[in-house]
């Protein structure tokens, strides 16, 4: 059996994904201390987990330092990296949407869109045939329309609670997001059997 390096996103998705791997029959320790650790070795399964920021998982996989990884579709869309998308795990489901202050229209001249996802936002408005100016932000995107930095925001929405609390309304649904199993193109070929086995076992656990 060949070694397998799996890049996992830290935080809430880690626990859900890890739980899925256990359900899929992988012999993994039930309790893992991941607060500060960046790597976890599981010799019995010849698996090594590396723990990365969710945004960075596709980077590790693209460069082949991780064979496979679990990444959000939002990140994959935004970064467009050369990785294979093998399975929709259907966990951490949410969607990307545009939002803004109620009863407002996009300005005619260079409407401004604040977002953590400049590529996704830019592609969406381009498809629609609207020219917009993208303002990149790293967090608390909801602030932008409230204080007049932007007309709209493009961000992930899971319950809509954050939008509501900040007096924003959703305007357009853009795309669904969930966690995906991704693979490095070389690992996909060189470790095909192991990866296919993992895909099949995980597929049975997808709800």
């Amino acid at each position, binding site marked *: 059996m060949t070694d397998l390096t799996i890049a996992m996103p830290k935080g809430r998705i880690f626990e859900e994904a890890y739980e899925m791997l256990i359900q899929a029959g992988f012999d993994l320790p039930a309790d893992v201390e991941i607060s500060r650790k960046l790597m976890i070795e599981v010799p019995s399964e010849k698996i090594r987990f590396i723990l990365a920021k969710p945004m960075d998982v596709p980077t590790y996989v*693209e*460069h*082949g*330092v991780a064979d496979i990884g679990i990444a959000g579709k939002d990140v994959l869309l935004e970064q467009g990296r*050369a990785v*294979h*998308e*093998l*399975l*929709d795990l259907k966990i951490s489901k949410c969607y990307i949407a545009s939002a803004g202050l109620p009863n407002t229209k996009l300005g005619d001249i260079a409407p401004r869109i604040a977002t953590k996802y400049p590529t996704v936002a830019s592609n969406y408005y381009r498809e629609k045939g609207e020219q917009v100016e993208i303002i990149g932000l790293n967090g608390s995107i909801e602030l932008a329309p409230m204080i007049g930095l932007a007309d709209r925001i493009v961000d992930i929405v899971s319950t809509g609670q954050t939008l509501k609390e900040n007096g924003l309304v959703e305007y357009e649904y853009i795309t669904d997001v969930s966690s*995906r199993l991704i693979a*490095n*193109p*070389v*690992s*996909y*070929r*060189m470790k*095909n059997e192991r990866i*296919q086995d993992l895909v099949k076992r995980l597929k049975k656990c997808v709800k």
Partner: protein
Amino acid sequence: MSPIRKFEKPLGMRDTFPKIFEKKEVVRQAGRDFLRLRGFDFIKTPTLEYYDTVGKASAIVESSLFKLVDSQGNTLVLRPDMTTPIARVATSKLLKEKIPLRLAYFANVFRAQETEGGRPAEFEQMGVEIIGDSSVYADAEILLTAIELLKALGVTQFKITIGHAGILKAILTQNVRTKEQFRELHKLLVHKNIVGFEEAIKKFDLPESNKETLIAFIEEAAELKSIAQLDKYLVEKDAFKYMERLQRILTISEVEEYIDFEFTLASHMNYYTGMLFEVFAIGTGFPLGNGGRYDGLLDEFGAQVGAIGFGMRVDHLLEVMPAIHEETTDVLVLFAQDDFPTALAQAAVLRKEGKRTTLQSIEGLENKEAFEQLFSEVVCIGQGGIVHD
């Protein structure tokens, strides 16, 4: 943008330092000896080509082309690949002299990129093309050349994944309604986005039977045990029979362990018409190279002949090749000004023995000790005669 600093290079451009230079030289030499012995002739083409000829015919997307304008106002490109210039020179000249042609190259190609590091915009490729042979044996020869070349370079853990552009096209078009649907599915396969492929099929307005066929095909193709499994998906069997013949030839050639058939393999290089393949090896996260049959490209240059070839990335090859341990003696001959004639004679003797010898005046050194450290042997020629360290 911040002002350019003195040490900066354009994005994606790299210096080749002496150590890497020597390593590449080993690859180049070994590759050249190997390919010459196999009957391939090496050629070189210009760095600059017209945008209207090579630039447009090349499968590299326009945004990746480096463009410039000549004094007459023509748009030029830095060659983005070697296959297209070779197709140009073969159709205009070489095919009149010899057919089929077996050509090889070791050249740098240029592809602009806007993103982050890790991807050079100029890189060396080593490759071969067989032009003017449409038989299945040309396909086999290209695959065998790739396999034997890797072995000759000391690469052991590698895989060649083989598909067929025509077969994939046939299976997809048989099961979709529109060109747009075909294009969307094909693009998803280029990126091996299995999730996206399955989602797209669900979304399409297609009869259930077609949807089921496509899903079954992609699942079966991921773990193909035998080419025969493909038979049921095809109405027109010519390409299928061609691949069966290819498989038989490869079995006779005893290279099965290096080969996987994968019929969802799709390439963004739209000139591939028949068999196509990708090369992967343990040790690098990126494919080593790719190749295939591109009869369509020759057609664009006005010749209706078969053509097939492959190109491999030299930078990725270096990552997967075993380390080269070369024990070279590196001699430093140091001399004071009056002893120059003695030093000159001494250096000549050493070089004749085949030893790499650096002749250096003490006068020219600022830090003698530090410089001496860089050599395996130091010969000091001074008033007291010759001293070996």
